């Protein structure tokens, strides 16, 4: 009876309840995420062996420096000064004392271990969420010792993906035109390097002028343009074997050969009967197909990542602008409409944006717009810059920039630069010589 009474009382009595309070957090801190990259720990025996093989005092510390440098270059992370670290690498890798890492304001921690196993380099690494006090990722790689730089890049790719939600771009290479000598008598060679500027290698001798090298989707092959006896030729080069092959001699001015996303075709422009149009060549049967047929100058074609569309530039409206068409040449639509001349359009590997060079009032800009032409954003402005190429995750662009010469014709230089989509993180990409026409590979470890 009493129970019933109490139940009735509970139902009938007004209960004071509060609606759930919601607070909208629409702002945050855009400064780079503080990350502690601890040196990879290494046992004494392995240390001695690697010192002998790789001529590096402490390979664990060298690999961690690569990770640290890569993360810093992104502008998204702030690797903390190692002098402030309270925990030794070998202990941190087993069980981090999160309080110590919180004290130095680290939000993420990378630890790891290097060992010499069966003539190989074995690297284990772990990514920790310092504030949650938990492991976010743990991976191990085994490879030949000479691949130690690549291991650093692969670790960075994994960390970057786990912390940003998108694939990295560190285990990649850049092919470019290395330039030396005075401006009027430049020697131009094809060169390739890791994305951080290391392992630079020249691929041609510099006897002939080389232009516009472009990777194919598998990274093994490069297509580029070279002049032989003053005639333009399109070449294919196998980077690993060094084997080179002439794809064809084409009439008149030939420009910017580039692979289709499946690697089966090359798309380019050349001038037949004095009129520059866009053509493709099937690499298997060498059949050339005309894609545009217009009395204007059509150049710089680039496929969308699904291969269904092509963007290119054309002066068919009277001024050089960017156009998009279906890959069979149908439904040509102009997409650039703002003031200035637009050129070198390149479709992002993500498919969402098209990067371009723009000339307006005597200044050159590198910018991006959506594939329908909306949302144009100019990322960087300079005296002369062009030829953007996308990182494989579609977040960073590499391009080249030339400096003005003085009245005596001195002071000319050409350098590679990178900029991310925010437009804030602009960096010089170090090269041994002057450099132009860069092309970024896709991820090597894919």
């Amino acid at each position: 009876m009493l129970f019933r009474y109490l139940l009735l009382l509970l139902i009938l009595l007004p209960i004071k309840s509060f609606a759930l309070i919601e607070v909208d957090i629409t702002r945050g801190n855009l400064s780079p995420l503080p990350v502690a990259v601890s040196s990879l720990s290494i046992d004494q025996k392995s240390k001695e062996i690697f010192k002998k093989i790789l001529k590096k005092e402490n390979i664990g510390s060298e690999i961690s420096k690569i990770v640290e440098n890569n993360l810093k270059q992104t502008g998204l992370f702030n690797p903390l000064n190692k002098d402030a670290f309270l925990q030794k690498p070998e202990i941190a890798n087993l069980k981090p004392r999160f309080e110590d890492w919180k004290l130095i304001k680290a939000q993420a921690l990378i630890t790891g271990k290097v060992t010499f196993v069966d003539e190989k380099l074995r690297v284990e690494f772990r990514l920790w969420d310092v504030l949650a006090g938990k492991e976010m990722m743990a991976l191990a790689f085994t490879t030949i010792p000479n691949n130690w730089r690549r291991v650093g890049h692969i670790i960075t790719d994994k960390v970057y993906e786990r912390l940003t939600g998108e694939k990295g771009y560190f285990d990649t290479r850049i092919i470019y035109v290395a330039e030396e000598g005075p401006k009027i008598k430049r020697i131009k060679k094809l060169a390739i390097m890791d994305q951080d500027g290391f392992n630079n290698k020249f691929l041609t001798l510099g006897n002939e002028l080389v232009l516009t090298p472009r990777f194919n989707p598998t990274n093994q092959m490069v297509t580029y343009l070279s002049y032989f006896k003053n005639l333009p030729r399109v070449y294919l080069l196998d980077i690993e074997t060094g084997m080179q092959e002439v794809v064809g001699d084409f009439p008149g001015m030939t420009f910017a050969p580039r692979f289709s996303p499946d690697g089966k075709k090359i798309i380019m422009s050349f001038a037949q009967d004095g009129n520059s149009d866009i053509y493709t060549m099937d690499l298997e049967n060498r059949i050339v197909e005309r894609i545009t047929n217009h009395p204007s100058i059509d150049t710089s074609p680039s496929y969308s990542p699904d291969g269904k569309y092509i963007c290119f530039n054309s002066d068919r409206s009277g001024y050089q602008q960017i156009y998009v068409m279906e890959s069979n040449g149908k439904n040509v639509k102009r997409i650039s409409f703002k003031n200035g001349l637009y050129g070198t359009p390149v479709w992002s590997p993500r498919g969402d944006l098209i990067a371009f060079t723009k000339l307006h009032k005597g200044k050159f800009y590198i910018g991006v717009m959506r594939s329908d032409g909306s949302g144009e954003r100019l990322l960087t402005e300079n005296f002369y810059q062009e030829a953007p190429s996308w990182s494989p995750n579609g977040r960073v662009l590499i391009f080249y920039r030339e400096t003005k010469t003085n009245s005596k014709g001195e002071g000319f230089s050409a350098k590679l630069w990178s900029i991310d989509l925010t437009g804030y993180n602009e960096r010089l990409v170090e090269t041994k010589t002057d450099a132009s026409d860069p092309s970024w590979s896709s991820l090597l470890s894919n």
Partner: protein
Amino acid sequence: MFDPNNIAALIDKSKIESSETKNKTDKVTQDQDKSIDLSGLSLSEEDALKAQIFGCWSIPLGLPYNENLLVRIKLQLKPDGSIIRSEILDHARMNKPGQGFYKVLAESALRAIKLCQPLRVPSTGYERWKDLQLNFDAREMLEG
């Protein structure tokens, strides 16, 4: 017939309706305004809490800015503002294919809460705010 796909539609609808109600209450008179003060945080209380979390939240800059970047986290708090429990309301989305960025965003929001705690909560009225929902939305910042 029960259609599980329709639940999402119902939730979305209720959200729109509640926001419409909120818009209507924007026009209340001073007398009515008292009830709002009783059930929610005052503007200054809300501002203090927001300012604290703004400073703690490192927005992952690599997020795609054209996606839905809203993470809702429900908190259960102690009277001193420290956290008893935190729950991501759209947890299922974290493991959906193609939503890797959402997991990254949700983790960054959880880190912000942990970094900030104890939260700057009012010194009185614990019953009012012991359960609190924070809606982290990165769109405004990333579209910038």
